[in-house]
């Protein structure tokens, strides 16, 4: 093999980029759905539910995504569940994202001023009506900037799907590197592509934050 980087390689990287985007959206969709339930559980009147969701969040936030990824992809087949790399990556990211988004959204729900609950109760709205018609519409405005910021973390974290053999951007870089062996060159290109995906979203998140008059600071997580 060997040779120089050519158009076919770039096309392959583009395909990997596409899968990174698909996986990020899957993680956002799945993690958002489960995270919403986690957030509702965290503020539920039922103490058992609050306790269970808090335990879930503590467990997931105390475990590296990489270990969750290995547990899903290598662990589940070992006890008899076969799983494809895409399914393993999407499931792991869903679990991981749900714990973080759940906490972000719980914070948003709890930061809606207390009198809003009381006013809604005074209007004889049921708990479901209070939540969906009064609290959530306001919480969404508070939650938008940090959620957009967290989407950057999701995109970056999809790179860990490469370890279970899912061919997204980082993995397609590794594959090209196996034939060209110019690692520094190739990983620089990969880094630039990730930057091009993430930077506009980071900027958007910061602009939303400034507009909302919220304190600065992206959801913090290296990866």
């Amino acid at each position, binding site marked *: 093999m060997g040779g120089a980087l050519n158009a076919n390689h770039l096309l392959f990287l583009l395909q990997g980029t596409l899968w990174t985007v698909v996986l990020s959206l899957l993680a956002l969709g799945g993690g958002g759905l489960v995270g919403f339930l986690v957030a509702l559980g965290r503020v539920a009147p039922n103490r058992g539910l609050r306790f269970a969701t808090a335990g879930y969040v*503590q*467990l997931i*936030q*105390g*475990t*590296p*995504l*990489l*270990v*969750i990824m*290995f*547990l899903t992809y*290598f*662990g*589940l*087949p*070992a*006890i*008899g569940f076969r799983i494809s790399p895409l399914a393993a990556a999407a499931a792991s990211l869903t679990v991981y994202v749900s714990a973080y988004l759940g906490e972000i959204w719980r914070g948003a729900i709890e930061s809606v001023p207390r009198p809003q609950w009381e006013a809604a109760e005074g209007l004889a709205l049921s708990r479901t009506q209070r939540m969906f018609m009064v609290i959530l519409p306001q919480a969404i405005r508070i939650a938008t900037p940090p959620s957009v910021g967290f989407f*950057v973390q999701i995109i*970056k*974290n999809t*790179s*860990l799907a*490469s*370890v279970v053999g899912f061919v997204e951007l*980082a993995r397609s*870089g590794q594959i090209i590197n196996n034939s060209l062996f110019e*690692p*520094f060159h190739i*990983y*620089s290109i*990969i*880094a630039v592509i*990730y*930057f091009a995906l*993430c*930077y506009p979203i*980071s900027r958007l998140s910061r602009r939303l934050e400034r507009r909302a008059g919220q*304190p*600065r*600071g*992206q959801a*913090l*997580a*290296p*990866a």
Partner: protein
Amino acid sequence: MNLNLDFSVVLERWPSLLEGAVLTLELALIATVLGGIVGIFGAIGRRSGHPLISGICGAYVEAIRNTPLLVQIFLVYFGLASIGLQLSAVTVAALALTINVGAYTTEIMRAGFDSIHRGQIEAGEGLGLSQAQIYWHVILLPALERVYPALTSQFVLLMLASSVTSQISAEELTAVANYIQSDTYRAFETYIVVALLYVLLSLMMRAGFFALGQLIFPRRRRLGTAL
């Protein structure tokens, strides 16, 4: 379906698990200390009036925060090799983690510096403190106290993220797990045990940082109060 779990084959490897956990904590500790120093200077640089210095610091923060740690680790690993520096995997891992967490710390410290009210600095000047004294007593220490909770959760996340360095075969906890599961064929049990070990490590770090906070910031002040 053969759901006969056997944790004993994993648990009897406790010496190597312990070794891995210790290396994970060491990596986290080194990167925390060095990254903290990088972050403080980065934040000072970002706030300096000099456009070139603040531009470089800003570019550093944006470049790190918008690319995955995995790619950063590979870049450091192969970048150093391509200029002829042969370092051990653990050294490269510590270096890459330091570069990574330094950028996040820069951003957190900058927010802390920005939260110091102008009047405080003017009061310091009025008392005849030197520039260095003002930076230390009026800006750095109060800012550090204010962002301490954000910093500590960042450092716990760093400890978890150090698992990625297993990809350049630094023998920390995740790499040990990979080795044990390929040796015992008990992947599920291995990763469950290791996940719980990580939870334990992060609880330990949180407790440690809390105790340290009580020690170095004895006058507990409510966060966000006008100062």
